[in-house]
């Protein structure tokens, strides 16, 4: 593959990746909200005379895994996921009871809305009438005699059988993703590929419904990604993101069984991450993947990097850079090269 095309992939990745600095405002808000929850619990303890309930916080979701992207367009908001590990036993409290503390602590009607979500409590910030960013707080019971961690699932309005403490290993997922590759080149390409795919789905799917989630794509990558960073023959560094993308796209297409695709979370509760998608939505996903594959192969076969990148831009969106024609047109190989063969 042309190094020119690989350079465009690097630029694309630099453009879409979400870094700490991009999230600074959100992180500040999150820390502020955590303080509000702590204050709420302190007050509650003082008023009831019961012992103070404490919790610790950890980052979860794509941000700590390094697979987070900036929003694809202005309509989309930044988000951040935080896990609250409460030092309490699931046998002493119901899931809704604990989630309700978080809800009540944050629901102060100030420049934000607080929503019950099945796996979390979401705090949404609005600016000029549009969502600006949101923070999801997942609530865990982490003081159990069996030493396991349980996530609080449910909302006050859904059926009671869906309200439960569900076994969970929220930190383990991050460890799995970060530990998948020891080779730094392989690891970087793995992360880049997840980000490319997440941006691709944001570019190719309009609504939330029927759009595969980032975690579903991450789980697929965890299971089926194959790095192309070195020549097999001689071990020489040769990073080919396009080849890795083609291979990974093929892998995902291969995971379809008739109309559906399944990808399990690689940690408990090992749930199918495509379960919410209907058969039709799965079919649309497959069709879009097939189109993606065609485009990637066409780009690979295109001799002119300018044209190849134009093709790729259609799939990955406007952030994918296209080098000027005049730059790529003069990409003639050297005609006089030193060698080191002797006989």
């Amino acid at each position, binding site marked *: 593959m*042309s*190094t020119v095309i690989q350079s465009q992939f690097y630029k694309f990745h630099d453009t879409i990746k979400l870094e700490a600095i991009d999230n600074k405002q959100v992180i500040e808000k999150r820390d502020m909200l955590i303080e509000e929850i702590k204050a709420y619990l302190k007050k509650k303890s003082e008023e009831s005379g019961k012992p103070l309930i404490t919790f610790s916080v950890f980052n979860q979701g794509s941000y700590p895994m390094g697979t987070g992207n900036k929003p694809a367009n202005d309509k989309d908001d930044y988000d951040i996921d935080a896990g609250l590990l409460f030092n309490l036993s699931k046998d002493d409290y119901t899931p809704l009871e604990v989630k309700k503390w978080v809800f009540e602590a944050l629901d102060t009607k100030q420049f934000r809305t607080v929503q019950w979500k099945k796996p979390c409590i979401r705090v949404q910030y609005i600016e000029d009438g549009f969502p600006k960013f949101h923070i999801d707080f997942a609530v865990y019971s982490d003081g159990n005699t069996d030493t396991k961690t349980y996530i609080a699932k449910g909302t006050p309005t859904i059926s009671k059988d869906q309200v439960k403490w569900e076994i969970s290993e929220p930190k383990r997922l991050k460890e799995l993703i970060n530990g998948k590759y020891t080779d730094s080149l392989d690891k970087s390409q793995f992360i880049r590929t997840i980000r490319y795919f997440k941006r691709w789905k944001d570019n190719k799917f309009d609504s939330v419904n029927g759009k595969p989630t980032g975690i579903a794509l991450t789980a697929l990558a965890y299971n089926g990604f194959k790095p192309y960073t*070195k*020549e*097999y*023959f*001689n*071990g*020489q*560094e040769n990073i080919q993101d396009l080849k890795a993308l083609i291979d990974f796209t093929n892998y995902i297409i291969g995971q379809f069984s008739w109309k559906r695709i399944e990808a399990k979370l690689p940690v408990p509760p090992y749930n199918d991450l495509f379960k919410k998608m209907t058969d039709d939505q799965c079919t649309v996903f497959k069709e879009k993947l097939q189109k993606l594959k065609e485009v990637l192969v066409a780009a690979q076969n295109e001799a002119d990097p300018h044209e190849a990148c134009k093709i790729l831009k259609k799939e990955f969106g406007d952030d994918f850079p296209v080098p000027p024609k005049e730059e790529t047109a003069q990409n003639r*190989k*050297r005609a006089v*090269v*030193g*060698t*080191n*063969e*002797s*006989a």
Partner: protein
Amino acid sequence: MEKNKVAEVINHLGIFKNIKEFTGSLLKKKELDFGFFFLDKIAEKDVEVIIGFNKNFPLSMPQYFIKDYDNFVFIPHIERDGKVCYTHDDYVYLNAEDPEGIIQETYNLTKATIEKGLLKSNFIDFINEFEAYWNRIDGCETIFGNIIIPNEPTLIKIGYNENKRFAVSEENGCINQIHRFTNLNDKGVTYKNSIIIPFSVSSDFIPPRYNEPLTIEYLKAIIDLLNDKEKQKLAKISSGLTSSELYVLFCFKQVNGNHSLFGVKFSNITSSGFVLTAEEFKGKITPINIHRLDKEYLYKRGGNGLSTFDKKGLIIGGGSIGGFISEELVRNGFFDLTIVDGDILSSDNCYRHLTGYNYIGKSKALAIKEKVERYFPHSNITEVSDSIENAIAKKKINFNDYDFIIIATGNVTINTYLNSLLNKNHLGIPVFYTWNDPYGIGGHCLVTNIEKAGCYSCIYTNENFYNMASFAHQNQPKSFLKTISGCGSIYTPYGSMDSMQTCLIAIKKVIDVMNDSTEKNAIYSWKGKSNIFLAEGYNLSARYSMAESELAERSYAFENKQCKTCQVI
């Protein structure tokens, strides 16, 4: 060990009855210091056995003799003086701490050899070692021979040069080769017709006894072994052989596939007709030992045991690698080679070139031809003292004439040109590209053109024209070229041993490919030390750090799908 000590060991062993000291002249002839003799019963026959020692015993084996062998039964593995050949010193380890055991076990072997002879169970060995027995016949003379063994009675030549005699086949090259083998004087050589008669032996065919005269009846019995067609051929070609002196050679195929070759000289012939078919023979018969200089015989002794005489090789580039490859190919039975190189051997090159200082000023191709042919008279080296581009343009070379091609130019431009030509027009002729990396870090042999995909250009199909097989990294702080005294003496640093090492892997692959049709296109590399390379500030490639097993596993994986030479259908 002194005599008394050995006597003590023998007495302690207690297997030899009535043992007495032996003092005959045989001991001195055989450079033995003392000996004993005793009577034993072997295959129900009384046998007097002498056991001789020298003072080095037990570092050397004892020798055993059948006493008065002249009057004993003629059996295999017994020399004229009665010495029993039960094994060979070089092929056994003697545990010097156990002299008693050495005597016991060597006598067991001796006894078994005699016993088999008396029971005639090893008479096949007479056939397999026929020449050795023939050479022991009283009055046997020796001549040189460069004979291609035929399938039927065939005329050959006997060369006479003063007191030298040699037998040669009439096939092209045999006479020329014998001239290279033997220093013939200026008085010239005269040739007389002679004949060689191949025949098949039966298991009861035994050589004449050394101390009995060789008779015409014995030789006529060989003629009786020929079938009618062979007899007719013999009659046809022998009609003119009527001089007073005539050499006749015989040969037969042993069970092990080798040929026994021996002869007789008929002299002072006064009878008429061909000596072996005429009713009467008057004259003298002398057994003739053939000192064999033919390639089948010499090559089997020193070669790799494979038959490669009929393969023709083309070597493009007669530099350091090409020179060593030429000689080593000949040593391995590839006698018919063509070497193309227009360069002149200079003194700068002499320490890493096969031929050395004695050949400077000659073209490298000619220098290699002269040296190799001088040392290996069966070789047939054609030199083309021209660049390969010119040789092709002038039609001096036709690639289709060759069974394999070795390219050792060290010139990527020329190699790429040849690759394109061979891949396109001569697919199926195996081609071996060979080169060294600088500073002794390694060398490579790319085997290609067996199949279309995976060629020399594949390894250069990348944006920087970097050799993907190299142990040197693509990015280097400076050029590898060195200079001693300006532009005129630029060279790449590598040594003679590097070229030899590359030569070795190439030769092994040539042999593999020529003998195994399942071989595929692949790259084989050897790794050398990198300390000087690194001390000079150069960078190694990732391939250099691969384990031998990884290199082997990936040797086929060099094909490049973007290659414009081999990927075009």
